[in-house]
């Protein structure tokens, strides 16, 4: 069971020669097998951020409303009424490839724990998903399993899944992305942190028992896939949402008392990372006795206890005089509760098992001397901006619209969200599909949160800096489009192998773009996650910096959706040049992924958005939809399909080719529906905001400027076809 610690084992554990040497220096001897296990997971890419940390530092993290930025289990922002929103996004990419249902389910479970560990009641889940080519039979199985897994876990714990996004691209064939986000609410003065304190204070383990699940999961999350990895896979973790639900209720009940000194979920690298981080942050020592850890299997070794990634577990430091209060609460909820150690002043982590000291490591060097790399970067070469006049349109507006709204990247996702309970809690004001951001009211208050996830990976591949900027801007825009004031983001940086300079170059550039956008939009990063080595057999995914945005509405009643009511004027806010580079029109109709992606002018972005928001809050804008994938015409079609109301659209300006005007993806734009375009446009002019009237709503048809007419009903049928046709008959795969 216990193996010799040497260079060869180091390699197997994912540490290089120099890192191994550093372990020897810190320990002053050859570490024990258990000690070496602790080093290897703490120094894995997943836990140490060794390739990404130098870049992450560039992200703006401060604003007057930020209470806790990156560094805690989740980010915390003040949202008014004495409340804080606590939120984070996290990836479960590798596990979801190996076992889609359980991988996605435990991804949801993990991010929920990061949020309620800080004292928040989770009120919403979102997700950001990327899958391979739909024609690859494996993709279908993965999509089915991931969607069931997200629903299976989220529905059972009773947290509504209110939003998300899905893209398809062959680059994700061997490496789907499953990023899950949770948002919770707590009073600003009842936030729980993980820094341990108090010499002699008990260290308490609660939740499920420990088994041999997912040992070395953190290391696995930091490794590429090759043809053999399906053989080598460690035991997959199975999620138990029922136990998670009990854990949420029990923790919140305990958090209402004064018993907790510090608390931390056991996520990646389980007991190791939770104990090391809690003690490390508190600048104290910690002693664990593994004999007391509730075990599900017999004969588990110290190494296995320390590295197990069994789900639904938490670690807490309690006030010694509150042990009984705490125990009673966990007994009530039928959860394991065990005192497994205490806080010391040694600055070391000491692990005892069966009468022996199995590990004894100084914490400061384990944390401070963790490897940190400024890896070589290679900039992505800039692509040429395409001239729309040189791109021929062989299809016309009607045909292109029909093709676009039916394609996998733009078709209706109702098949997906119909499997997610989006209403539990009774506070969901805007459900999936109803608006650019989900809107969830706070129980008993008028106030509501707006939530979204965004990223356009094809832009990021073509120009990672512009793509990173665009992802943040789009999140900001989506929050604005419901009338919310954007407050902060969480991010999930999904990239390939950081040891390749071109990948590290993508990462660095994406961060640069994100940082610029966060700065300009007052939209700091308060939490996030990095997932590297997303490659299969040397082929990387599209660079995917997924953004989770959070905004606030003082009054939920002011939120607007995309649903188009009849007899309104349709106006586009923001300038249209007809940018076809990297557009979906170019890919789906033109048959190529080409050119530079649309640039984002952050000053314009902010001005346009601030104007739109003010007009939503004044009640003038009745429906609003940002212009994104597919451009203006797709946006209007989506508004029409949501309500069943059609529109008559007028001609486009002569200096822009029709397909470029209607399908171009220029940034910083919104389609709004207002009762009177004249007064709206006057106000926009006064504010220096470009606008243009596009038409009027009404009837059951969409009448295009080239004279083509499509009934909204038939558009809907096209829009909804893909998922149902693709997925039906797959029901037998159902697990559980």
């Amino acid at each position, binding site marked *: 069971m216990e193996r010799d610690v040497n260079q060869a084992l180091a390699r197997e554990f994912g540490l290089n020669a120099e890192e191994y040497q550093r372990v020897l220096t810190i320990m002053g001897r050859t570490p024990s097998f258990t000690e070496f296990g602790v080093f290897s997971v703490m120094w894995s890419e997943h836990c140490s951020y060794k390739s990404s940390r130098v870049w992450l530092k560039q992200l703006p993290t401060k604003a007057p409303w930020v209470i806790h930025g990156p560094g805690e289990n989740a980010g915390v922002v003040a949202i008014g009424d004495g409340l804080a929103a606590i939120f984070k996004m996290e990836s479960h990419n590798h596990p979801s490839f190996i*076992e889609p249902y359980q991988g996605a389910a435990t991804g949801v479970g993990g991010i929920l724990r990061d949020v309620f560990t800080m004292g928040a009641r989770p009120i919403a889940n979102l997700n950001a998903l990327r899958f391979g080519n739909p024609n690859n039979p494996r993709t279908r199985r993965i999509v089915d399993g991931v969607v069931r897994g997200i629903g299976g876990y989220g529905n059972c714990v009773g947290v509504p899944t209110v939003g998300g996004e899905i893209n398809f691209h062959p680059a994700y064939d061997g490496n789907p992305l499953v990023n899950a986000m949770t948002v919770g609410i707590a009073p600003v003065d009842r936030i729980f942190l993980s820094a341990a304190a108090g010499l002699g204070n008990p260290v308490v383990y609660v939740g499920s028992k420990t088994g041999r699940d997912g040992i070395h999961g953190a290391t696995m999350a930091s490794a590429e896939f090759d043809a053999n990895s399906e053989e080598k896979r460690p035991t*997959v973790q*199975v999620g138990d949402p*029922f*136990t998670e639900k009990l854990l949420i209720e029990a923790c919140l009940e305990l958090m209402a008392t004064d018993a907790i000194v510090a608390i931390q979920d056991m996520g990646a690298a389980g007991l190791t990372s939770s104990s090391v981080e809690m003690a490390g942050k508190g600048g104290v020592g910690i002693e664990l006795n593994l004999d007391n850890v509730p075990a599900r299997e017999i004969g588990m070794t110290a190494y296995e206890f320390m590295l197990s990634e069994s789900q639904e577990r938490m670690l807490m430091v309690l006030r010694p005089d509150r042990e009984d209060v705490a125990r009673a609460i966990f007994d009530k909820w039928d959860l394991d509760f065990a005192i497994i150690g205490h806080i010391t002043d040694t600055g070391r982590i000491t692990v005892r098992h069966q009468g022996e000291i199995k590990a004894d490591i100084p914490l400061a060097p384990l944390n401070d001397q963790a490897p940190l790399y400024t890896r070589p970067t290679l900039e992505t070469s800039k692509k040429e901006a395409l001239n729309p006049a040189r791109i021929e349109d062989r299809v016309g507006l009607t045909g292109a619209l029909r093709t676009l709204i039916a394609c996998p990247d733009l078709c209706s996702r109702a098949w997906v969200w119909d499997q997610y309970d989006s209403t539990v809690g009774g506070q969901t004001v805007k459900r999936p599909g109803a608006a650019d951001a989900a809107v969830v009211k706070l129980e008993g208050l008028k106030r509501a949160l707006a939530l979204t996830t965004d990223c356009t990976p094809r832009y990021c591949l073509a120009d990672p800096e512009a793509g990173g900027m665009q992802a943040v801007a789009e999140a900001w825009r989506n929050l604005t489009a419901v009338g919310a004031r954007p407050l902060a983001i969480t991010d999930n940086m999904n990239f390939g192998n950081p040891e390749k300079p071109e990948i590290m170059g993508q990462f660095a550039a994406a961060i640069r773009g994100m940082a610029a956008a966060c700065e300009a939009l007052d939209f700091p990063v308060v939490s996030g996650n990095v997932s590297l080595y997303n490659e299969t057999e040397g082929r990387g995914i599209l660079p995917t910096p997924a953004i989770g945005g959070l905004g606030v509405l003082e009054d939920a009643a002011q939120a607007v959706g995309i649903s188009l009511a009849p007899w309104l004027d349709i106006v586009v806010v923001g300038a249209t040049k007809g940018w076809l580079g990297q557009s979906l029109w170019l890919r789906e109709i033109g048959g190529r992924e080409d050119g530079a992606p649309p640039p984002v002018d952050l000053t314009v972005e902010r001005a346009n958005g601030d104007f739109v928001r003010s007009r939503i809050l004044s009640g003038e804008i009745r429906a609003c939809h940002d212009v994104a994938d597919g451009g203006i015409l797709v946006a209007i079609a989506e508004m029409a399909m949501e309500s069943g109301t059609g529109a008559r659209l007028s001609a486009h300006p002569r200096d822009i080719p029709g397909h470029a005007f209607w399908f171009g993806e220029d940034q910083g734009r919104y389609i709004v529906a207002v009762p009177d375009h004249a007064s709206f446009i006057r106000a926009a002019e006064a504010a220096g905001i470009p606008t243009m009237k596009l038409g009027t709503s009404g009837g059951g048809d969409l009448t295009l400027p080239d004279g083509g007419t499509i009934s909204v009903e038939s558009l809907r049928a096209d829009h909804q076809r893909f998922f149902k046709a693709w997925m039906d008959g797959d029901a037998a*795969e159902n*697990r559980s």
Partner: protein
Amino acid sequence: MKATVTVMLKNGVLDPQGKAIAHALGTLGFDNVNDVRAGKVIELDLNETDAGKAKAQAEDMARKLLANGVIESFRVVVE
């Protein structure tokens, strides 16, 4: 022929259902239950008269569809 495929979670894989059932049985006063494992059973009516072939086919079906090899194991009985 009838082939019965029983699919159980592999040893070591968490079995939340089994755990909950054991707990519920305890609440009902059944106090001599050491352990509970929950699984699935799939009864196949096969158009096949040779027991050996039926078994081989059912095993093939289990591998390809009925069991999830990552977390589950299966056994086949033919009558």
